């Protein structure tokens, strides 16, 4: 047991994933045309390559998202223990959320949530 099972699992996993792909590659008919090579096969035609510089505005959104996303990690231990710690814990988490909310409010006032 132990590592043998782990190796078996690894082999099974690789076999399962690659087996399906191999099977479809072997059985399915393949057709080649220009539309197939586009990033989106249907919808409006794409312009330019995908190697473009992204607008720096995306980074700003990503930064704000990152902060609020990660701070949520503190909610999980609280959620596990909320019944035991009772009303005090509730007040504390409300204070915590209020601090986060002030940050969001500040970002909003600075126009960070507006697209360009």
């Amino acid at each position, binding site marked *: 047991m132990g590592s043998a099972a782990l190796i078996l699992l690894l082999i099974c996993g690789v076999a399962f994933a690659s087996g399906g792909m191999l099977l479809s590659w072997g059985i399915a008919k393949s057709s080649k045309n220009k539309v197939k090579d586009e990033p989106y096969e249907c919808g409006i035609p794409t312009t330019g390559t995908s190697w473009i510089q992204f607008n720096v505005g995306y980074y700003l959104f990503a930064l704000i998202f990152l902060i609020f996303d990660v701070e949520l990690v503190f909610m999980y231990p609280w959620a596990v223990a909320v019944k035991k710690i009772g009303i*005090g814990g509730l007040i504390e988490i409300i204070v915590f959320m209020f601090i986060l909310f*002030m940050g969001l*409010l*500040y970002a909003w*006032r600075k126009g960070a949530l507006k697209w360009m």
Partner: protein
Amino acid sequence: MNFDAFILMKSEMSLTLIIFFLLILKVWDGIKDNTALLHVVNFLLLINLITGFFGNTDGSLFSGMFHTNNTIYLEKNILKLGMFIISLQSFDWLKNHKHLLEFYILMLCTLLGMDFMISSNNFLMFFLGLELSSIPLAALANFDLEKRKSSESALKMILSSAFASAIMLFGISILYGVTGTLDFTEMAPLLTTSQLSILAFLFVFAGFAFKLSSVPFHLWTADVYEGAPVSVTSYLSVISKGSIVFIFITILFQLFKSYDTIWVNVLNISLLLSITIGNLFAMRQENIKRFLAFSSIAQMGYILLALTNGTQTGESAAIFFLLVYTFSNLGAFGVVALLSAETGKETISDMKGFYVNNKFASWVMAICLFSLAGIPPTAGFFAKMFLVTAGAEKGNYTVISIAVLNMVVSLYYYLRIIKAIFIDKPDTPLAKLNGSMMMKISFVICISGAIIMGFASNLFEYINTITGK
């Protein structure tokens, strides 16, 4: 509800309230007048400083994570005093700045982090305080958003400070693995002289040496000091350094007490290098902020000299020195802030003939530099003397004599600035700089501190009695 928390954490609570008040002011955006805002903030900081002197009780909170006693209250008051002086000095710079409230919010956040760090008795609390005090500082260093130097210094600061705290964290994780606890008092008796825990100690020490900018971890200091705005530089060199020294004393003297033979050696090497290299590089600087950066590296070396003592004498000498250092260094930085805010110039040759039209500011600079150099009538002399005598108690006279020789060398470069101000005659001397009332008040506080502290011998005795408990 238990109200102990509100009494023991009153310094942190009042800071948090001020931060929220300023944040709400910012979000509300009602007051457009910068001067009025600055007066409000300075008034709040003054109240914050005064409350620090009353109702101080010892105690600990959060199952020993946070503890406080009279020494810690004194240390917090020194930091608050420095914050107040810096706030007065940045008046001229901030009165036309559009991000004024952000400056104070970030700066008070770092002060809050330092308060938590000093009070910590647990590595988790310590780490949180350390990061809270160092991350916003990088943002503050970038405060002149459109200046190239400012963003360069901020980048250097955030990258190297993140690296240093990562290395320190690795050390902390090993210490946790060795002892199974994060609490300082529980951890201290469990530390053995196994090689793993000594390695961990060295990692933690390296992190601290970085934050103290003692050689060989000093390379970020000069660049960050030069590029950052003057107020931020003075904050970095006095308050940030001071808070790290305070917690460093606790960690060395309490947590790593059993390793004292090891850290005395490490400290000796680091302090000799700091004093020598700081002095040698300070001689050839043209930019005053860069010059003060190297001089502060050398001063850190003298503080480490007192710490080699390893007892309460060293601790009280270091605290007294930092109190005097706050006054004298902030006075010197205040003159630079005045010069920079009015003319934008920051080099030593720009100060030539400064005395002709700015008599008061010249004397402030002279007294503060004398105090930094340790020339007798000023407080700096007594503070340095206490540091050196504390270091000498251990009997390592080679180290002491090299340190004292370096003190003589340091006179050269401090006098170089004084010569530029008083003796050199340029073609067109600087015009009179009209500093605001706030700036003048800060100058009065600084020079009176730098002179009176030398004669108030009860103060050192007071520090000595409270650290003895």
